[in-house]
């Protein structure tokens, strides 16, 4: 088995040469044919992944339409409110085309999607793409900021903890992460609001200042919600990273590095972190995908006009068109992120590359 003493300096024992060598004769031919096999395999890999992704999106949107249809009360009743007499509801449903069969409605919607038209919401009369493009940047900022918080905290504390497993720092951080995992977001949010916005008005109580207007005010409105999202993620990230780091630090090549006189700090940062971060990268990708559709609680608590609240609102008003738009977006985000995560493995740990892995 290959154990490079320093991943950066060891030449990669790749099937194909990494650079600039002159090849002659039979070796050249065999290398060339291997290259073409690899590129068509890569091509097939992409086609397969994308095809699978499309099928997933189709299945998910069909199930969404079916599920929303099961909920009592339709969008017509929601719009009409106190005027939702049986006649008015029937009339509005006919006007909106909601009395058509399931698959007619579905394929009508799908036909629009294929041409880039996600439809118009019967509830607010706005194009779904407009509504989503207003809401999405807020959620993306929230997710990005919370990932930065979560990763910074987890990498920092993970490395500190792994340096001396079961030491004071490790136990303390372990207790902290247990706490962060145990406290639900809907408890954490109000507590943070009370402590940092009401009792001590450091942050605003409610609302969102758009980034384009005043980035300082924007960060102030985003801080508490991002922290709320970040803390449970931090707990999971930290534990995974710590476990992987501890495991990696026990490998032979780390002993070899120590024997060569490399400092503990350099070993930790340069030698152990990258291979140990595979799981962290995987779970970060999964988290980001989940969070794009999963910030409902925090957005509701802090009244942020993001995708989460748009999602919640569309379910409450039975606004299928908007809901489907969000579902499509979240599914695509998830698929793309997972694809990127898959690709990144080869970048992070060349050993995966050398074994002809994915």
């Amino acid at each position, binding site marked *: 088995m290959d154990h490079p003493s320093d991943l950066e300096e060891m030449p990669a024992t790749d099937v194909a040469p990494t650079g600039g060598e002159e090849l002659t004769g039979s070796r050249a031919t065999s290398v060339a044919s291997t290259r073409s096999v690899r590129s068509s395999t890569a091509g097939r890999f992409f086609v397969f992944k994308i095809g699978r992704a499309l099928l997933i999106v189709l299945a998910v949107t069909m199930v969404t339409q079916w599920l929303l249809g099961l*909920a*009592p*009360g*339709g*969008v*017509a*009743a*929601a*719009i*009409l*409110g*106190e*005027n*939702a*007499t*049986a006649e*008015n*509801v029937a*009339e*509005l449903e006919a*006007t909106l085309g909601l009395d058509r069969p399931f698959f007619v409605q579905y394929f009508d919607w799908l036909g629009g999607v294929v041409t880039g038209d996600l439809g118009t919401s019967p*509830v*607010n*009369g*706005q194009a779904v793409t407009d*509504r989503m493009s*207003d*809401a999405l940047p807020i959620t993306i900022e929230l997710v990005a900021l919370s990932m930065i918080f979560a990763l910074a905290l987890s990498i920092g504390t993970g490395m500190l903890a792994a340096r001396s497993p*079961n030491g*004071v720092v490790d*136990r*303390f951080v372990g*207790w902290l992460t247990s706490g962060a995992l145990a406290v639900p977001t809907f408890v954490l949010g109000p*507590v943070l*609001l*009370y*402590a940092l*916005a*009401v*009792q*001590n*008005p450091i942050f*605003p*109580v*409610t*609302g*969102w200042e*758009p980034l384009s207007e005043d980035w300082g005010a924007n960060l102030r409105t985003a801080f508490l919600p991002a922290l709320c999202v970040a803390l449970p993620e931090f707990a999971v990230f930290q534990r995974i990273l710590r476990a992987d780091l501890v495991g990696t630090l026990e490998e032979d090549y780390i002993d070899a590095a120590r024997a060569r006189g490399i400092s503990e700090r350099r070993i930790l940062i340069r030698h152990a972190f990258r291979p140990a971060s595979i799981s962290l990268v995987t779970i970060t990708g999964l988290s980001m995908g989940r969070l794009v559709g999963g910030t409902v609680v925090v957005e509701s*608590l802090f*009244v*942020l*006009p*993001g995708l989460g*609240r*748009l999602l919640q*609102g569309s379910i*409450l*008003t*039975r606004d299928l068109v908007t809901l489907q738009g969000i579902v499509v977006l979240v599914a695509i985000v998830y698929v793309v992120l997972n694809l990127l995560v898959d690709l990144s493995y080869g970048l992070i740990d060349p050993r995966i590359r050398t074994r002809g892995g994915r």
Partner: protein
Amino acid sequence: MRSTSWKRSLLLMMAVAILAVMATACGDDDSGAASGSESTPDEPGEVEAGGEMTVITQSEPRTLDPASNTNANSTGGPVMSAIFGHLFIIDPETQEFVPGIAESLETTDDGTTWELKLRDGVEFSDGSPLDSEAVKFSWERMLDPELASSARGTVTKMTSITAVDPLTLEIVLDEPNPHWLHHLLYEPLQWIVPPAAVEAAGADFANDPVGAGPFILDSRTPGSEMVFRRNPNYWDSGKPNLDELTISFNPDGQQAFDAVSVGQSQAFVNPSDLLVREAEGAGMEVTQFEMIGGVNWLMNAALPPFDDVRARKAVVAAVDPQVINETVFQGAIEWPSPLIPEWSPLHDPIELAEPDVEAAQALFDELAAEGTPVEFTISAATTSESQAMAQSIQTQLATFDNVTVNIEELDAAQWAQKVFAEKSFQMVNAGTNTLDPEPVFFDWWHSSGSRNVTQLNDPDMDAALERGRNATDVETRTEAYAEFVEVLNEQAPAIWVYRKNQSVLHEPDVTGWVLYGNGTPIFDDLAFTS
């Protein structure tokens, strides 16, 4: 080392826990916590011209087309009022007609023919004139089913709308109603749109509205807030006072309260009664008016078990609203008896039926002996108040034999479907709240009323409501509504819980709040005082 390392961790944990508790406990006290402030300032400060104010409301209107909005402070009222202004209001305190864009609305006969006179020279913010054609256009478009207008029923009952001259509109109703003008207080009929702009913009008008109100929409962050600047072309010159008005949306009452208390906002429209009580102790002021009638829980008289009047009477006799007051509202509310309070010209001292524990149990036993014990489901709304009231009713009824109560929660779409479309509920939270009994009492309680979800069909009740509608003198009407309450007590279709107040909670240096109808604010006079 091993045996003491856990002790060290434990000490460390305790130290951190103590620090955390201290950190949250120590904080600056709420600034400006004045003690014993009243709801009116001791000395009115001088009104400042201009200024920028932020007002919080609970929900964002789903569209900016006034035809599709309902006229209430809990829905689109505030935003629509800012953009479209008002035709007229009836002052909740003096019960007098106060002109707005309209100078008068009077019947020329027994209430079948009405004449609306408009103020001269009113223009929309795009310069086009607000005349009788505009009013006719605005009202007639509410018939379009796609707009799902809450005024559609009212406009359907207009036989004709005629623009007699640019400042006069004649409306002929299909049935006489000398108090018909009250309809406009609770419906989007107040909000007039410019015909040319609507026809040009089509569906887009709902995103980019043009009105004749005190403010013009400047910018909008959907889901968060709307910013308005003053309309320089407003008919009431010199008004509005403010240069800029921001209306922000927050469905959480406590957060809205906190936002005002830390100064992030200057006012909160439609706070709950509990928050109103806290406001006075937190240095804020409340402007409010009381309505007649009250918040109630309706029983469906068309379905078992409440198709039997004995079951209804048993429940009304068993549930004590005072207990709900204490457990849910901490004493902040008032039982709405007499149904029409003293300040109303139509007041009669007839009280609602009081709880009677023995009578209730006797009725429950009687029904059980017949093989039909009372069993039902309460359909609560998603608000915490509604759920808490439902739980209190369930808890109180649990102390009786032969009655079983379940609770279910309905979101808005389910509620509309179950209560109005299907009328398949057994008990549901609603309210009969209004300034004058017309038209609300009729809508909810007459057998032909548009919101008669209890489906009570009592000829005496119908007769009383018809008399109250058709009479113009105060004595006849007072008698009629007293009879109405008598029948209510006999038929027991509802548990009456508390009197509804329309309120706005604000900082003490804010003045000029005017509310009408379902608490919809008028922003003309809103100002800061120094």
